[in-house]
Structure formats: structure tokens, C-alpha cells
């Protein structure tokens, strides 16, 4: 081993630089199961605090659902803890094939392939399915995993302004001679909570003979009348060529993801997708628990309905109180502060008042767009939301920001 003082110092300097820029992330320790309320220790070593959780991706409240946990236990008993293999050697069990078939039905596609995470799924898609003559045209606000996935591909890459269909058309016109074109978008954009105009995107794709890729991680399980995702919501069921999604958010929240779409594409990913070929199979616990989640969602829309009514109530309560929120129809509800210091101070005060919600600022979001992102869950009862809004209003009064415009908010820390 050689880890010289000079090498150590170089890493220490990098960390110091991150800290000086105010970008160092301290993890909050949850000493509990995931849920509407959690016990949190922050900073490490301090007393644990019971908080209303307004920042998890546990949209359907299934992360600690007893039936899901039971299914994971059954998987341990009947299919073991691990497979110690990638899929194509000795890592494919009957339950993996069963889950792939269930997901294809749930998402309305021809076939599905499982990955260790949606990050891995996005890392596999573009490199495997496109070559140097092809073009990837992506929305500018797609998730980091898509950006990294596109970087691995040989195909050329261009972007269009966020959800700007005129601009997308212009780009499709520019590249219409390319053999294969693919339009790439998130279903729900995670920082603003807004929804892709998938109906218009599909229309453009048909006009220009382009494929459509959607990462529906913040939508699968709850967006659309039956919770199938943005393609259901936008009325383009069966018209999306590639859907990637995660099991790490609404669908139980452990980990794992998939690519779902035309059977040739899925088969090619099985043959050549590097994150699939060279990383372990999905654990049996996650595989069986995800199937249980699908059972729950196919039996009833009760959870996505509750999430929707929570979302409508929360959006109205914040607007009525005088906060500026990013309008939308998803359970991601960002509250705009614009100023990073104000967002940070507000988030710290929320913690003291028993509400867990985190501030986001540059470079995670654009300069001058600091916000606190709140996320609703079907696990929230009205009592949680009423307590949370009371805390928001109390702190809003303290900083005198209720009913203030963007310009007025920006003056506060001047």
C-alpha cells in the first residue's frame, strides 16, 4: 500500500474545497423504519428527534408495509439471501422471470429486464441501443443517471430547452437524416415536480420517426388513474419505446430498477448491456417484495388516490398560506425561496419544529432558484399535513415571507 502524505493531502484539499463552497453533505441518521414519521439523529451524536417526513420518495407508503416485508421474509425462506452470480451464469431464478413478466403487464410493454438500480438501467440503455450514426435528443433537466448514461454512448447528443416542444421540433428537423433518433425525457422532473408533455413528444416522435425514452422513476405506481405512469396519464399507453423505472421509490423503496419496452431492445440489453452483464442479479427479497407491491397496486388504487388527495390539499394549503410553489400535478412540491441562505435557514427551523424537509440550491438547481422540496406520501394522514403546514406558517411569519413576491424574497438577505 502506498498512500503518501501528499496523496492524502490532495484528497483533504478537495474535501476542504467542497466544504468551503458550502456543498458538503452531512447525512441525517434515521433510527427507525421509513414512514410518515421518523426518528432522526442530526448532527451525529445529538438527541434523536421525531419528525414528520416530507422528503422521502416513499410516495405510496409501501416502504414498511407489513405485506411487503412479509413477502421479503418469504423470499429469504424459499429463494435464499443471494445468488452470488450475474443473471446469465446462475443468477436467474423463476421469480426474476415472473417479476419481468409482471412489470411488462403493469407498464403495458412487450418485455422487461431487471437491473440492480435504475441508475444502472440508464447506464445500459444508450450505449447498447445506439451507435455513432444515431442521435440522442434530451430534455435539459433529465436526471443525472441519464446524463451519465448518454456520456457512455457513441451516439451524438443534443438537448432541447426544458419541455419546449418548439425547440424539440427544431432539433428533430436538424437531425432528421439520422438513421435512429431518440427523444429522452424524465416522466416527472425531480427538482420541479413538473410532468413531461408526453402526448406532444409522442406526436413529434411519430412525425419524425424517432423513438421515445422515458425515465418514470418519480411516477411509476401512482401517476395516471391506475398508477401506471406518465404514459397512462398523458394518454400514450403502449406508445413509449423505452421506459426505465426504479423499485427504490414508490414500489417499496429498497433498490433495483428495470428497462421495459420492445422485445428486441430488451433482448439486446440482455446480450450487451454492461451493467446487466457485469453486476449481480437482483436479490430475491427485492424481487418478491416488488411483486407483492404490484399485487397491492393491481388490487386497488386506494393508495395512489390518497396520495393524490394529499397532494391537492398540500399544494392548496401552501398557496393559501402565501408561499410560492412550483405549480404542478405531482407529489413533488417545491417551495421557492430563491435565496440559498433563506432556504437553508428555513429548513433548519423546520427541523426544530419537527418537520423533515431539505433545502436545494446551486449547483443542484440553477443559480437563484433555491427551494425546499417537499414530497407527499400516502403514508401521510391529515394530522401530519396539518402539523407540517402549521410549522411552515410559523416559520414563514418569523421570516416575514408569507405573501411576498420573488423580488421581495430576494431582498430579505440583502
Amino acid at each position: 500500500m502506498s498512500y503518501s502524505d501528499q496523496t492524502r493531502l490532495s484528497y483533504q484539499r478537495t474535501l476542504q474545497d467542497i466544504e468551503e463552497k458550502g456543498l458538503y453533505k452531512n447525512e441525517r441518521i434515521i433510527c427507525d423504519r421509513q414512514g410518515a414519521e421518523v426518528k432522526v439523529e442530526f448532527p451525529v451524536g445529538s438527541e434523536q428527534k421525531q419528525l414528520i417526513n416530507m422528503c422521502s420518495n416513499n410516495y405510496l407508503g409501501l416502504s414498511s408495509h407489513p405485506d411487503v416485508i412479509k413477502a421479503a421474509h418469504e423470499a429469504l425462506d424459499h429463494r435464499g439471501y443471494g445468488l452470488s452470480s450475474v443473471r446469465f451464469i446462475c443468477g436467474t431464478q423463476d421469480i426474476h422471470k415472473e417479476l419481468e413478466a409482471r412489470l411488462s403487464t403493469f407498464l403495458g410493454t412487450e418485455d422487461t429486464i431487471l437491473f440492480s438500480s435504475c441508475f444502472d438501467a440508464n447506464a445500459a440503455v444508450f450505449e447498447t441501443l445506439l451507435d455513432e450514426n444515431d442521435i440522442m435528443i434530451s430534455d435539459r433537466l433529465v436526471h443525472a443517471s441519464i446524463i451519465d448514461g448518454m456520456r457512455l454512448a457513441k451516439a451524438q447528443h443534443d438537448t432541447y430547452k426544458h419541455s419546449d416542444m418548439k425547440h424539440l421540433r427544431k432539433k428533430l428537423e436538424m437531425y432528421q437524416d439520422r438513421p435512429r433518433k431518440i427523444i429522452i425525457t424524465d416522466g416527472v422532473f425531480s427538482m420541479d415536480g413538473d410532468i413531461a408533455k408526453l402526448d406532444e413528444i409522442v406526436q413529434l416522435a411519430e412525425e419524425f420517426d424517432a423513438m421515445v425514452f422515458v425515465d418514470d422513476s418519480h411516477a411509476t405506481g401512482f401517476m395516471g388513474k391506475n398508477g401506471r405512469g406518465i404514459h397512462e396519464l398523458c394518454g400514450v399507453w403502449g406508445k413509449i419505446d423505452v421506459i426505465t423505472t426504479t423499485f427504490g421509490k414508490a414500489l417499496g423503496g429498497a433498490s433495483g430498477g428495470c428497462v421495459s419496452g420492445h422485445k428486441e431492445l430488451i433482448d439486446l440489453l440482455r446480450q450487451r448491456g454492461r451493467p446487466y452483464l457485469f453486476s449481480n442479479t437482483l436479490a430475491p427479497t427485492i424481487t418478491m417484495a416488488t411483486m407483492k407491491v404490484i399485487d397491492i397496486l393491481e388490487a386497488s388504487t386506494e393508495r395512489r388516490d390518497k396520495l393524490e388527495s394529499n397532494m391537492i390539499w398540500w399544494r392548496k394549503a401552501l398557496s393559501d398560506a402565501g408561499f410560492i410553489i412550483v405549480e404542478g400535478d405531482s407529489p413533488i412540491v417545491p417551495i421557492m425561496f430563491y435565496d440559498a441562505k433563506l432556504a437553508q435557514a428555513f429548513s433548519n427551523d423546520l427541523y426544530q419544529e419537527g418537520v423533515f424537509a431539505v433545502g436545494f440550491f446551486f449547483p443542484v438547481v440553477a443559480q437563484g432558484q433555491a427551494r425546499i422540496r417537499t414530497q407527499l406520501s400516502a403514508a401521510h394522514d391529515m394530522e401530519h399535513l396539518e402539523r407540517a403546514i402549521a410549522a411552515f406558517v410559523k416559520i414563514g411569519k418569523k421570516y416575514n415571507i408569507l405573501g411576498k413576491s420573488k423580488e421581495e424574497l430576494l431582498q430579505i438577505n440583502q
Partner: protein
Amino acid sequence: MKEKLIEFIRDEFLDEPDTEITENTKLISSGMIDSFSLVSLQAFIQQEFGKRIPAPRITAESFDTVKQMIEVIKQF
């Protein structure tokens, strides 16, 4: 080249088209353009000037101003 780049940046990236941009305006470090959008600038340079700049040469540091961009483009 300078005018064409400035015009493209204005149309492609800015919400307020009246924003003044000179060859020395800091575009990425100021947050005006996010570094991910540089791929569109790379595509434009190839299309407009016929120069394919390799991705590693297009960084937040080397493409922060129009002046810097021109210096890099001239090397190809």
C-alpha cells in the same frame, strides 16, 4: 465566429433574450448556462464550423466565455 456563437447562446440558453453577452461574459461559472448544455454547443460548433471538438476539451473551465471557446475551436 464570435457573433454566431453569441447569437446561438442567446437563442439556445437564455430565457431573457435581451441579456447582454460579450466575449468575456462568464457563462457557466455564473450559472447562466449549466455544464450539461455544453453538448448542444458542441453540436452547434460541428454543424456551423465543421469542427468536431472532443468532449474532454469542452469543460466548464475551457468553455466559460466565448473568447475561451474561440481559442479552443481554433486548435482544431
